[in-house]
């Protein structure tokens, strides 16, 4: 068999496709001839880092991915977890970093669109979304523009589609100056016995294309996402896709209606590398060949080449294998929603991926090998060396009240209201906790008491200093945030953002972070059921902070017994659960050191996973027993920031003691892990200390009381809540309004 090559395959062309010489040799060995231009494009799409996980696969395999609740782990469009009553939650987090830097609105919008599609492809109706966003230094010339565009894009897509955005993260660091991170999370609900998969079944069945038409947008996008940025960055704009949430909403409704008819055998959304990845995935998983006839593909541009059609990343498209006898029912659904559809191919028994165009066969490749034989690397890696501990007397001093006011109003810790008010957080009518607390919570529609909690967490500066502890901490903090609202953490998704894995120090970060994540997930019974890896997040050779974002999902059996972070009432006792003897000790890698003293030294706080679990399980029990009236976890900024957030959220002040003989700085600003603030009514306090505390094995000192209109920390001057709130709310709108000079 021979396929004519109109375009000669040169080493330069191979390199332009992101394929290394040895990878190209592997292609030659595999197919026994020179590939066509279209085939080269297909290989580059399937074998790039984004689609093949070639650098990370070895380490991803070490993560715990199973558990009694797990219905589907990694490898499908999203993970599926049993939540009882025959229902399942379907979720995943995925990055859209490179496109969002080049074109922030569309990059972020299509990131949201892609993750929503991953969820409803599996038969689940999306019920919650989150976004973990990381930008460069606020003073960098591009940052404000990127924040404005990304936030508008996230909102523009999710709001129109109709999913509540219930949580997320926004962080600034100069290390993201040339490479921002946009990690989009979505979760949906489905009947546990009605999950749809990508595995094709049956020979000679129609392969049907549904959704938006194919254009040239995004051609080569997955390859771009697997390359570092250089100074030619702006030339990459044409590889960014354009989102259409209106079509996505129709696609959602059409897919769910179609699935209800029983017509769908297999379904796969067209995400990265569009038609190529989706068709190969469906065939390879089902041990079937796929034949595509590109003349049948709905297109929106003229004279598209087969290469462009196979690599287009036009959004809002689905590929499915349908029961032939239900085609008429399927057609009625598509027509109702006015979506383009076409039978573009069929399943075959020859295990080949064949692409026809204008009478020619432009690709004929072994379908299994396209996916399974993708290169896999055991890349060399250097063991990271954590920084030495700070000297015990190395405690830079500042007035506690001054420090708190500066920190609560800083870019790192100020209110994200400017951001989340651009997201529809109410839609669907099930939002119980909206952004601003420890976790977003939604009711499970149709169930009288059940609710789901969602959080997104990672502390990249910890990961930079010690990737292993940082990986553990990301998982532990997600688990803690879910616990803090009273949820059982049931499973997580990971979105691993790192630099160039071909550099051993970056690979070392990835390896150690994955090991840390794995250790924490095992200790906390918190399996990873889906995820995404984004590498080559570098600009001109400088990597981002290692950022393994963890999206956690928790189950609340009875939402009338959940906790919120705002103080519940005046005159309640404040207890610090999980505290060390001195309440707070660890300043290494703290916000206090970084933002007030410009210091990024010391190791991050270690995470004692057994302690974490013991404290969390106790706090959750207290929430469900109605003993805890408000709960907030301690994280960035330590005890002082957590108290301030509880006060601001409620409008109720607090007075907190200070241990005699100790330095108040680590006590109030240390970032020791595994701690929660819990309030209790004074009348239940005796019961707690007499009946529960003696056998709990957790140190939970009574550190102060709620009440008044100021926050008083030890011997520091009382800070009126109005002043605290004003500081907390000011920075973001002023920065985005261009009022802050020097930023």
């Amino acid at each position, binding site marked *: 068999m021979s396929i004519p090559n109109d375009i000669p395959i040169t080493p330069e062309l191979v390199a332009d496709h992101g394929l290394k010489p040895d990878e190209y040799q592997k292609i030659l060995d595999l197919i026994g001839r020179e590939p066509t231009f279209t085939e080269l494009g297909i290989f580059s799409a399937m074998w790039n880092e984004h689609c093949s996980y070639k650098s990370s696969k070895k380490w991803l395999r070490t993560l715990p991915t199973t558990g009694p609740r797990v219905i589907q782990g990694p490898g499908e469009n999203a993970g599926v977890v049993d939540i009882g009553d025959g229902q399942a939650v379907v979720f995943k987090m995925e990055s859209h970093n490179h496109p969002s830097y080049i074109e922030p609105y569309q990059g972020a919008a299509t990131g949201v669109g892609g993750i929503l599609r991953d969820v409803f492809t599996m038969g689940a109706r999306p019920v919650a979304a989150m976004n973990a966003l990381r930008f460069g230094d606020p003073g960098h010339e591009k940052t404000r523009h990127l924040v404005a565009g990304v936030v*508008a894009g996230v*909102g*523009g897509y999710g*709001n*129109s*589609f*109709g999913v509540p955005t219930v949580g997320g993260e926004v962080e600034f660091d100069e290390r993201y100056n040339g490479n921002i991170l946009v990690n989009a999370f979505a979760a949906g609900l489905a009947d546990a016995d009605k999950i749809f998969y990508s595995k094709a079944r049956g020979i000679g069945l129609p392969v049907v294309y549904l959704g938006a038409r194919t254009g040239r947008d995004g051609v080569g996008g997955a390859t771009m996402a697997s390359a570092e940025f250089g100074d030619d960055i702006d030339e990459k704009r044409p590889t960014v896709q354009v989102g*259409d*949430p*209106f*079509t996505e*909403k*129709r696609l959602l409704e059409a897919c769910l209606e179609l699935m209800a008819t029983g017509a769908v055998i297999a379904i796969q959304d067209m995400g990265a590398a569009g038609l190529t990845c989706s068709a190969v995935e469906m065939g390879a998983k089902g041990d079937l060949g796929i034949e595509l006839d590109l003349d049948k593909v709905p297109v929106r541009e003229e004279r598209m080449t087969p290469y462009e059609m196979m690599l287009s990343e036009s959004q809002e498209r689905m590929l499915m294998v349908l029961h032939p006898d239900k085609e008429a029912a399927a057609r009625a659904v598509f027509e109702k*929603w*006015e979506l383009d559809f076409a039978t573009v191919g069929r399943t075959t028994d020859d295990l080949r991926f064949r692409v026809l165009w204008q009478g020619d066969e432009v690709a004929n490749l072994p379908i299994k090998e396209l996916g399974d034989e993708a290169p896999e690397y055991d890349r060399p890696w250097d063991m990271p060396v954590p920084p030495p501990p700070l000297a015990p007397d190395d405690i830079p001093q500042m007035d506690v009240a001054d420090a708190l006011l500066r920190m609560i109003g800083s870019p790192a810790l100020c209110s994200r209201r400017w951001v*989340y*008010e*651009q*997201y*529809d*957080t*109410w*839609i*669907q*009518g*099930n939002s*119980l906790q909206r952004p601003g607390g420890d976790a977003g919570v939604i*009711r499970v529609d149709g169930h009288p008491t059940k609710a789901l909690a969602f959080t997104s967490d990672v502390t990249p500066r910890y990961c930079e200093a010690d990737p292993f502890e940082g990986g553990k901490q990301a998982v532990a903090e997600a688990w803690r945030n879910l616990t803090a609202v009273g949820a059982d953490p049931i499973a997580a998704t990971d979105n691993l953002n790192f630099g160039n894995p071909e550099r051993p120090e970056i690979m070392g970060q990835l390896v150690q972070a994955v090991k840390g994540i794995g250790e924490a997930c095992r200790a906390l019974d918190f399996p990873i059921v889906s995820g995404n890896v984004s590498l080559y997040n570098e600009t001109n050779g400088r990597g981002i902070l290692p950022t393994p974002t963890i999206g956690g999902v928790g189950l609340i059996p009875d*939402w009338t017994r959940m906790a919120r972070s705002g103080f519940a009432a005046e005159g309640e006792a404040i207890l610090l659960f999980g505290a060390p003897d001195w309440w707070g000790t660890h300043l290494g890698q703290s916000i206090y050191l970084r933002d007030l003293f410009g210091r990024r030294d010391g190791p991050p706080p270690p995470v004692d996973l057994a302690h974490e679990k013991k404290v969390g399980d106790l706090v959750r029990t207290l929430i469900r027993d109605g003993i805890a009236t408000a709960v907030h976890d301690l994280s960035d900024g330590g005890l002082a920031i957590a108290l301030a957030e509880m006060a601001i959220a409620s409008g109720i002040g607090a007075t907190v003691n200070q241990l005699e003989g100790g330095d108040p700085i680590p006590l109030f600003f240390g970032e020791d892990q595994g701690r929660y603030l819990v309030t209790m009514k004074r009348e239940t306090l005796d019961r707690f200390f007499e009946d529960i505390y003696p056998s709990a094995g957790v140190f939970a000192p009574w550190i102060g009381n709620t009440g008044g209109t100021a926050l008083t920390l030890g011997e520091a001057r009382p800070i009126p809540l109005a002043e605290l709130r004003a500081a907390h709310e000011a920075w973001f709108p002023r920065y985005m309004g261009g009022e802050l000079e020097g930023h």
Partner: protein
Amino acid sequence: MKSAVVTFPGSNRDHDMIVALTRVGGTPPAIVWHKDTEVPAVDLIVIPGGFSYGDYLRAGAIAARSPVMDIVRERAARGVKVLGVCNGFQVLTEAGLLPGVLMRNASLRFVCREVRLEVVNADTAFTRGYAPGQVIRAPVAHHDGNYFADSETLAAIEGNGQVAFRYAEGTNPNGSIHDIAGVLNQDKNVLGLMPHPENLIESAHGGTDGLPLFSGLLQQVA
């Protein structure tokens, strides 16, 4: 009491509205698809929130020209109550059933937050559950809620009691002229408002200030 919810491609708060009508009225509303050529005999027609046709033209402009709106217009003329929320309000202004227009928010940004509403005219089928001058909480979530009308129209609707709700206590989220949040037609049987009373009707929502709109309305038309 019978109600119907009209949906267009891109409607996305239809679910919230159906839940509210079912919860308060006891029976689920009829669902009318934009291509339907008939609307059942109902006492209340609701056009819910969302992004009909993506709002890629002016918000609500395409939906306002769909055939089903001819039926809505004809029913409204016969006194049937018509409620448009958010995108529904935009559709009703575009369809000429309500005066004024809804422009892009003054901030140019989507806004989702809780605001305060003053019940300006409590003497209508929609607002009889509230006291005149009562200030209630209400969620808003929109990109194009900046109400505008020329001075002549403004004088007319203010003089004729057609302003149903006004943003209160400095919470106008979008730059609406005269802080107008909800507008009635001359006969007071058509109401459009930007806020979402359907998202504040039970304790799980954190409040029930939206409930009297539905309970007053449904009792009225029962």
